[in-house]
């Protein structure tokens, strides 16, 4: 109970520090129902944030899985339990590496694109022009981008984990000759619904965090070349720190 209290307090402190960001988030959430009516706009943003990040996510997933296969095999071999490679890789990917690495890659690929796009729209008066056309830029531009990121992130994380498991199998079973049957059956027995839930919850929360940071930095960027550049950099740095911090909190909460 004490741990949770401590965590709660640190969470509150962080939230107070980010008061303005939270108000911005509330505004986004309040506008979400009406934005959902224009689902075509959100689909376009899911494509921008999700589909366009697929290649980098899949490649990274494959390599991370292969490294897990090698390292896991080395370690487990010492205890004569190579067959557990499947469950070890799957748990590691689904609960931790999938959501976290995907979020970091997402911040680098989609987050920076969002922030610089919004920053440039601000710098070239596009957002003011929308306001002058009686169109709320937050509703028309920011909310679809935010929701696109939020929806894309869990999907990307799932794909990352899937490809990662395939990579681990590639090394473990195909090259190191771990028994295929025990690799898969141990994985099926060892990975519970709770583990998958944890991965889904994490990636959803990381999706909200990364997308929020990107649209916040972009929307309130100083409308100059230097300002947009700074917003892009801050998007990556803040997202990385926040994701790793939240990951710690969430892992603790799921214990």
């Amino acid at each position: 109970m004490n741990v949770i209290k401590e965590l709660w307090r640190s969470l509150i402190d962080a939230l107070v520090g980010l008061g303005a960001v939270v108000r911005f988030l509330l505004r986004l959430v309040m506008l979400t129902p009406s934005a959902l009516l224009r689902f075509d706009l959100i689909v376009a943003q899911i494509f921008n944030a999700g589909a366009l990040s697929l290649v980098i996510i899949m490649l990274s997933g494959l390599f991370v899985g292969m490294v897990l296969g090698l390292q896991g095999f080395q370690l487990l071999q010492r205890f004569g339990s190579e067959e557990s490679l499947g469950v070890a890789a799957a748990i590691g990917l689904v609960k931790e590496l999938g959501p976290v690495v995907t979020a970091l890659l997402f911040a680098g690929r989609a987050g920076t694109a969002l922030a610089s796009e919004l920053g440039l729209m601000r710098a070239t008066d596009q957002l003011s022009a929308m306001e002058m056309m009686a169109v709320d830029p937050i509703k028309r531009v920011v909310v679809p981008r935010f929701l696109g990121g939020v929806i894309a992130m869990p999907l990307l994380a799932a794909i990352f984990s899937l490809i990662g498991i395939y990579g681990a199998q590639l090394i473990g079973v195909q090259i190191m000759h771990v028994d295929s049957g025990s690799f898969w059956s141990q994985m099926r027995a060892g990975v519970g619904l709770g583990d998958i839930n944890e991965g889904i919850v994490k990636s959803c929360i990381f999706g909200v965090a990364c997308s929020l940071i990107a649209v916040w930095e972009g929307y309130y960027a100083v409308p100059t070349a230097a300002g947009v550049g700074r917003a892009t950099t801050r998007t990556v740095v803040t997202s990385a720190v926040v994701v790793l911090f939240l990951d710690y909190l969430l892992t603790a909460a799921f214990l």
Partner: protein
Amino acid sequence: MRSLTRHIHLNQEAPIVEIRGLSYAVSGRSIFDGLDMVIPRGRVTAVMGPSGTGKTTLLRLITGQVRADSGSIQVAGEDMRTLRRAGLYTLRRRMGMLFQNGALLTDLNVFENVAFPLREHTDLPERLIRQLVLMKLQAVGLRGAAELAPSELSGGMSRRVALARAIVMDPEILIYDEPFVGLDPISLGVILRLIRRLNDALGLTSIVVSHDVQEISTVADNVFLLSGGKVVARGTPQELRSYPSEIVRQFVGGLADGPVPFHFPAPDYFTELLSRRE
């Protein structure tokens, strides 16, 4: 006959923009101090003045992007001081604004840019939207550019597309923020002609903020000259040319020195040159 009565009716109506005793300051620096300005309906009104006199700020005040510190601004019968967000958005549907660089949405092509206000505010069928957009593009001479992306347009063309977008909702007021900056003589002539033609053909009110004296004199019905946060001269372009005031003569004649000094305030020249400070 009906159009005639409407015309008479419009002429008798109150002015479209009425500013009384307007004061506005940004971070302690006063931009306007007791500004009065009445902009008549149905005319092309130019707001001129040296750079930094707050012409663009005035537009932002008239369109409700910023609020005045004191004084009143009435736009089309609405009091900008008390207007809430929803009311402001309703009012803005009756206004069109042309930004300095056009401010086209870069992720949409020319056609979709012009269609943007229609798609956001109306439920018109696709066929009608197409016809309306093509009509407005024809009016600015760019129907053939409908499929181009904003990045493929020249500066003058972007501004014409933005103009088509500004008139697509048939506004009552059309506001131009420095529409001549960086245009070649041909594009400039095109924009000038459009300002006059659109104003007369669509029966709207045009407010043009500019510091290009010669250009604006050819289309404006009346001119306000701002300096130091006040209106220093008003009248037709012809009246302004013979206006008995130093500042007006300097501005209209384009003289380097006068009431608006050539030199930015600085310490004495020789003292500073001869001082030993590194």
